[in-house]
């Protein structure tokens, strides 16, 4: 191989790459947070006794899970202006990421709620707790704890898929890399650096989310303490 690696030309692009990294972090955080909120709300809605919300949530979840994120982004950014809804690339991808993540998390959390035994509902109701108090204090905490690990995996996958926002020109880490690579022609160097950053982000996100879990959930903390 006659190719010599030159990372020098990349130094000039450091500010753009850092900006891109920041945007990737922001998109990931908002996508995770927004998706979590949507997901939990949908999971709760699908446990309501009436059929309509359950059906609507089912449709939403299946559409999100059975179509690619990239196409979802295209529908929102390129498609919606056809019916008069015009959004910036940034807002479009944010909505797409939240909706996409929300669909997956709704399904995971719904599974957690369903695996909670009916008797827990009965005990809480018998104490006079309202339906939402029962969910808030009795059903959701152990359900979320039970599904925490798949939720973390899903959120890490979401972080990785934020790279797709570059397809509509959002300058996240990948977007900034595309620009740096086309302007310096040091393609391999750029993508090697970017790859290393994503792989590290993967570990950092996993560690941070798991740490958050330990802080939030008393029981996993207890099991950990007991084991050590």
């Amino acid at each position: 191989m006659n190719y010599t690696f030159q990372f020098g030309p990349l130094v000039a692009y450091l500010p753009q790459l850092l900006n891109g990294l920041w945007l990737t972090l922001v998109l990931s955080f908002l996508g995770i947070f927004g998706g979590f909120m949507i997901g939990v709300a949908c999971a709760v809605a699908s446990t309501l006794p009436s059929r309509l919300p359950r059906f609507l949530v089912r449709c939403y979840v299946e559409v999100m899970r059975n179509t690619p994120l990239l196409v979802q982004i295209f529908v929102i950014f390129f498609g919606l202006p056809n019916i008069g809804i015009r959004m910036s690339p940034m807002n479009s991808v944010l909505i797409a990421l939240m909706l996409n993540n929300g669909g997956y998390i709704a399904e995971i959390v719904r599974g957690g709620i369903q695996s909670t035994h009916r008797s827990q509902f009965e005990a809480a109701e018998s104490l006079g707790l309202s339906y939402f108090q029962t969910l808030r204090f009795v059903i959701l905490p152990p359900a979320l704890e039970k599904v925490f690990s798949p939720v973390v995996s899903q959120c890490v996958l979401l972080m990785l898929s934020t790279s797709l926002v570059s397809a509509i020109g959002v300058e996240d880490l990948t977007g900034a890399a595309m620009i740096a690579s086309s302007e310096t022609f040091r393609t391999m160097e750029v993508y090697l650096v970017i790859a290393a950053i994503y792989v590290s982000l993967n570990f950092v996100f996993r560690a941070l989310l798991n740490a958050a879990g330990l802080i939030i959930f008393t029981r996993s903390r207890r099991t950990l303490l007991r084991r050590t």
Partner: protein
Amino acid sequence: MRTFGTNEFLFIVYALQWTITLTAIAFVGGGVVGICLALLRISSRRLLRVITSGYMQFVQGLPLLILMFVCYYAPSLFGLEVSAIAAAAIALTINSSAFLGAIWESALRAIPKAQWESADALAMTPYKTLRFVIAPQAIRLALPSTVGFLVQVIKQTSIASIIGFVEITRAGQLVSNATFEPLKTFLAVAALYFALCFPLTQISLWLERRAARRGSRA
């Protein structure tokens, strides 16, 4: 100006063959490599396990788009030109291998140690133990997640559109540029993905329920 009509829709449907081809290559290729990875992960040699795990973690931590760029541009360093489909197929294969390897590794690990030991006691070779005792049980365990991951692969082929490979997402972009009807076009694209993926998702769910029923009966 063209409108989004039957011909435009058929153009996208025609590109479906490339989505399916790419999926098939990635799934089969990733499956073959994935089996090797899963077996390496349960090998008795620590070094092999560590290296394999490193590879799997690395690939799983890499956005597929970046992997595709690397596969597309890296060969040019050696003066080679690769087509978009080749780059996409290689990237998808690498990506799938790591995820499938992880799914199958956990299935292999879920088989109780006593199964290995009792096969040992029957003087079976490690290969035969794997072939006749472990694999049949592990396959049943891993089947729902494997079908679930197939859905993942189908959706991920859409990323090949970014390096210019004309599968259905790229076909959608072309039609959208020609007709200025992106909403109809991309909804049609989404509907095609849905038609491919939804049945598989349902099958995966059915397999999962069946496995759960069997598990509770045993």
